[in-house]
């Protein structure tokens, strides 16, 4: 453990950068997320060899090659299963999953749902670009209805699945949403996720300039963000808009709604409570608006303490060795 302390003192971003040339398209949102993750890692005080990135298949899946940690680039959709096995065998590792909207919510949704309900001690970063990037532009389960893609030339006839709602429906204990463009928000959410003992599910809204450019312009572009992004902070009244002029209130029928603070008064605003055992508030927030039109809440929707799934058989890798 002294070793860890020693390393914590000296760890830097460079310690987490592998020698592999990053191979994403110019301008891809994945670069920003990679930088953010490499930036936050040193703060965790965990030496690189105790960290494992298990990734799925997709552009997002290439993430593991760029981290100077242990890494497994698995098969499409199965990263949560592999990571669960790793967690079952080893309690001494910090296990991270990087996945895409197709990898996690199309072929891999079953494993995602079960990792979440089990509360396996892994952090899941879902890069949601609402498109299939690696296979060059087919519709994804998060693509909006009517979306024209190579596989839906006449427009998609399907409703998108909303990652935060699905995660809450599966019983997730930690659910957050952030964006590739805001490195401070991204870093803050990553820290919170890293601290969560069970499964931490983080949806990262990520831009794919090649096949779905500007999908999140309304939450990343400064001016528009002010109108559409709702920052969630535990224990704080939920407000947004220019000078926080707008806020979230409970309508008479119990549903959440957006109102002008001037009209309803600050006291009327709903105070965000991410620690509530009942996930209903988090779920309602996720339905304030849809990803396409907004408003889009950003931050930690839910973070409740709950026993993490089975402690590993092997306390440390040394024990596995002796």
């Amino acid at each position: 453990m002294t070793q860890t302390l020693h390393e914590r003192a000296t760890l830097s971003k460079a310690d987490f950068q592998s020698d592999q040339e990053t191979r994403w398209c110019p301008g891809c949102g994945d670069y920003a997320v990679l930088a953010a993750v490499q930036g936050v890692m040193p703060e965790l005080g965990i030496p690189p060899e105790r960290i494992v990135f298990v990734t799925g298949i997709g552009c997002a899946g290439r993430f593991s090659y760029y981290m100077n940690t242990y890494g497994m680039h698995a098969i499409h959709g199965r990263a949560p299963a592999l990571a669960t096995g790793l967690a079952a065998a080893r309690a001494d590792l910090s296990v991270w999953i990087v996945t895409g909207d197709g990898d996690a919510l199309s072929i891999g949704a079953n494993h995602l749902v079960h990792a979440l309900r089990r509360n396996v001690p892994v952090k899941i970063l879902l890069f949601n670009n609402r498109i299939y990037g690696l296979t060059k532009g087919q519709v994804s389960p998060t693509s909006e209805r009517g979306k024209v893609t190579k596989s839906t030339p006449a427009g998609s006839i399907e409703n998108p699945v909303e990652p935060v709602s699905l995660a809450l429906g599966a019983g997730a204990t930690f659910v957050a949403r952030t964006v590739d463009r805001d490195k401070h928000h991204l870093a803050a959410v990553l820290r919170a996720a890293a601290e969560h003992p069970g499964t931490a599910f983080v949806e990262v809204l990520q831009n794919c300039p090649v096949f779905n450019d500007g999908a999140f312009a309304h939450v990343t572009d400064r001016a528009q963000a002010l109108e559409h992004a709702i920052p969630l902070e535990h224990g704080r009244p939920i407000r947004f808009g220019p000078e926080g002029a707008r806020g979230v209130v409970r309508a008479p029928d119990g549903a959440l709604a957006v109102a002008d603070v001037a009209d309803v008064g600050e006291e009327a605003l709903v105070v965000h409570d991410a620690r509530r055992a009942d996930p209903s508030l988090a779920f309602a927030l996720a339905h304030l608006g849809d990803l396409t039109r907004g408003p889009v809440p950003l931050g930690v929707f839910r973070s409740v303490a709950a026993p993490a799934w089975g402690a590993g058989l092997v306390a440390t890798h040394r024990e596995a060795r002796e």
Partner: protein
Amino acid sequence: MAATSAERQERVIVRFAGDSGDGMQLAGGRFTDATAVFGNDLATLPSFPAEIRAPAGTLAGVSSFQIHFAARDIATPGDAPDVLVAMNPAALKANLAALARGATIIVNEDAFSKRSLQKAGYEDSPLDDGSLEGFELRRVPMTTLVTRAAEAIDGASTRDAQRARNLFALGLLSWLYDRPTEVTERWVEQTFAEKPIVRDVNLAAFRAGLAFGETTELVGARVHVPPATDVPPGTYRNVNGTTTTALGLIAASVRSGLPLVLSAYPITPASELLHDLSRRSALGVRTVQAEDEIAAAGIALGAAYGGALGVTATSGPGMDLKMETIGLAVALELPLVVIDVQRAGPSTGMPTKTEQSDLLMALYGRHGESPLPVLAASTPGGCFEAAFEAARIAIEHRTPVILLSDLFLANSSEPWRIPSAAELALIDPSFAESVDPDIPFLPYERDERGVRPWAIPGEEGLQHRIGGLEKADGTGEISYDGANHARMTALRAAKVAAVDVPAVAVDADPDAELLVLGWGSSEGALRAGVRRVRERGRPVARAHLRHLNPLPADLGDVLRRFPRVLLPEMNAGQLAHELRARYLVDIRSHATVEGRPLYAGEVEQAILEAMAA
């Protein structure tokens, strides 16, 4: 009855049959234990109704348990029973076809009411319409006798009495074959210690059965089967293939120092292994019931990546689903043990019937060139070594290994000598350790056996990335280079081919012209069939394969040494097909797909025909 031929004295086959609710598996199990204690060699075969519970008294609801015991050298649970105990009409109807004329049938007369006859689809009672001509029929009013015996015990309900009929039958057979009674009585006392009434009723029923045999001549002379003499010394336990497989995996975990992580998704007949290992957490075993077979394989592989002995077990349909992940393990070159407890296919097929039809899938069921070692267990006891060996190969050669078992092996049991730890080889995972931080770690650099280093997370300085994309020889970095791909394809194949496989053990008579080759659970039937042919004074040779990939180096020579090779298997001729391709030898296939183990008798016939042909 059973006292007609010497053979009969030598070896006896008894089958208990009744409704699922009649406790036949229990009666059979107890009889088996007593027989093991008595010192006979034995083999058993339980047969359950299809997965779903059928209405009581119907044919679909019949459950049975067969035991074959003898003074020496038991090879199979036997073909045709000498004695059938039928607790109701359905049990009689369902099992009659299995009997040879002259066999003894002991029925619970009281159970042959009009209604239950109808349920079994009988117009008139077979006990009276002469349809049992040629069998030694014994009518025993079991229900009446047990009820009477139970009356003595106050508090005992008729329901209790009903439930104890199986012990009456057990008592009767125990008398007939002179089984030690204390074993059974002690078991009853321990099991029902908390329920004194149930205990007493069961004891009473058991003794009533004994007394009935003693006092009436109804069931003919009692038969004596001398204890086995030709078995090597050691502590024996009567176990089925599921238990021995579990113990073999645990032994491998102990001898390798790697914690055992089994992940499985329930499926008949593999579920029992999950159940068995779930009860062994005290031994450091960790079991995970996955959300499906794909996840089960992924969890086992993830655990292996972390330095555990990762195992996953399933049956046919689940194997289909695991293939993509097994292919990943081939590319990652990590240890993974995959156990396929085969059942009758295709598709859902017949979940409670046995078959050997997954061999070619095990060899070729993945896209691309993805070779891996394949082993097959051949006896309930042999599952131990097979499981241990599969784990050893996986760990030492960094490869997924498929172990083929089947429903017959999983359920049938035989006395098995518990090996001492010392008898078991040590398994060396030889984890990579960082020596000099300046020397870059090459995860795909190979040793003389073509094996790559295994560096598990936590080892400082050995951080590396692996994945399913083709890797550059040595560095393991992603490579789309054609020449490298050809080289890696060859290296992966060479590594598997380099697995050390013992030479074929051929048991041949001096001038045998015919070799009977087999694999998997048919070993017992082949051994027995060959013995019968030898008893006819005909020379013959026999060999059985445990390693199906790579095959023994000398197999080709062995095959060519005999003018004729007969390969009986419980499929459409899969191993025969594979061996023809490899050795261009015109192997004669005896293929049976009837959802049952081979019969010694049919093997004997097949051999004689092959000799005649």
